[in-house]
């Protein structure tokens, strides 16, 4: 964050009164990753109540569009946000002049995070995004928006975004280290603290990618084995109402699932009305999971 601006609109100094009480940010604990722009291509701006009220936030955690979604990462420990020394130019006379603020950096650790998360986070490094935070006092730390009811993610310099897996030692658990620099255009004065959250950081969750493989395919139905693509575990507990079957060809439209049973963890036996040579696509929707790989068109079912 840099703050070299001088207010040339007034000829006096700015007033320095302080309110009797103001919210002060505590240590950043739960980062919420948020894209810089929304699915319509506009600069991302959210209602503060979308981030302070769980009933509003949970649909955003599960938003269908990845650009509109918020991505919690987990509980961070040993968080340090340091600002490097400001840069001054020194004249031959010894006088110095302010050039720019030092960059502000973030570093923190997630204890016992799976190593797969390292690759997932590093894949974000080419995106334009920022963070909101839930701090250790359960306050939302965010950036001010276009009016007092709105907020924006505090943007980071994605060139500096990096996660590393830190192996366990005899006296420390395995950890994931995240570090980055805040974007130089972000100002400390624009960071806002919002209280009154009706949830805690522990309630937050990110989505798990899931995909299916198919077997026992016939005109009477098929078996779908649904697993987490990143972590490999079975996706259990899906219900008939979570699934949708669509005929892709020859007659595009909805297909009817007559029944489903989870015959073993993550293995779902479907009975559906299809005919030979139909191509159908199974999709699913459930909080905490992202099934987009299942229905991205690369994994359609051809009825023999």
């Amino acid at each position, binding site marked *: 964050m840099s703050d070299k601006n001088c207010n040339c609109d007034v000829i006096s100094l700015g007033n320095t009164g302080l309110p009797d009480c103001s919210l002060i940010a505590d240590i950043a604990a739960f980062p919420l990753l948020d894209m810089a722009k929304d699915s319509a291509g506009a600069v991302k701006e959210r209602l503060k109540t979308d981030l302070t009220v769980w009933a509003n936030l949970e649909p955003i955690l599960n938003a269908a569009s990845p650009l509109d979604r918020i991505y919690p990462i987990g509980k961070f420990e040993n968080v340090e946000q340091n600002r490097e020394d400001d840069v001054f130019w020194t004249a031959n006379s010894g006088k110095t002049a302010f050039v720019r603020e030092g960059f502000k950096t973030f570093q923190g650790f997630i204890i016992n995070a799976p190593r797969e998360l390292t690759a997932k986070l590093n894949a974000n490094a080419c995106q334009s995004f920022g963070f909101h935070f839930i701090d250790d006092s359960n306050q939302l730390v965010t950036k001010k928006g276009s009016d007092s009811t709105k907020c924006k993610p505090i943007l980071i310099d994605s060139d500096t975004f990096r996660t590393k897996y830190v192996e366990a030692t005899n006296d420390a658990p395995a950890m994931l280290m995240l570090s980055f620099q805040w974007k130089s255009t972000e100002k400390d004065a624009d960071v806002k603290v919002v209280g009154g959250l009706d949830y805690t950081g522990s309630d937050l969750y990110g989505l798990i990618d899931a995909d299916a493989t198919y077997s026992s395919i016939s005109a009477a*139905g098929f078996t779908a084995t649904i697993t987490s693509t990143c972590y490999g575990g079975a996706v259990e507990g899906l*219900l008939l*109402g979570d699934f949708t079957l669509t005929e892709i060809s020859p007659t595009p439209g909805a297909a*009817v*699932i*007559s*029944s*489903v*049973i989870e015959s073993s963890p993550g293995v779902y036996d479907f009975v559906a009305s299809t005919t030979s040579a139909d191509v159908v696509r199974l999709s699913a929707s459930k909080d905490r999971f992202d099934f987009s790989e299942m229905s991205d068109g690369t994994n359609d079912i051809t009825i023999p």
Partner: protein
Amino acid sequence: MKIKVISGIQFNLDAVKSMSLSRFKELYKMRFGENTESVYYEITGKVKKEKPKKKKKEEAPE
């Protein structure tokens, strides 16, 4: 979607109701065996039509 669960299978009620008994038997005979027909009637709520018993021929008078 209305769902009915029998033996762990989640049935789409509307789909089964629009299905004939013979089609249901094709799809579920392997799973339910001899009980397939009664499962069908339990899901659909339809009442099995009993075939009228043929009356015994009256014995000819001596």
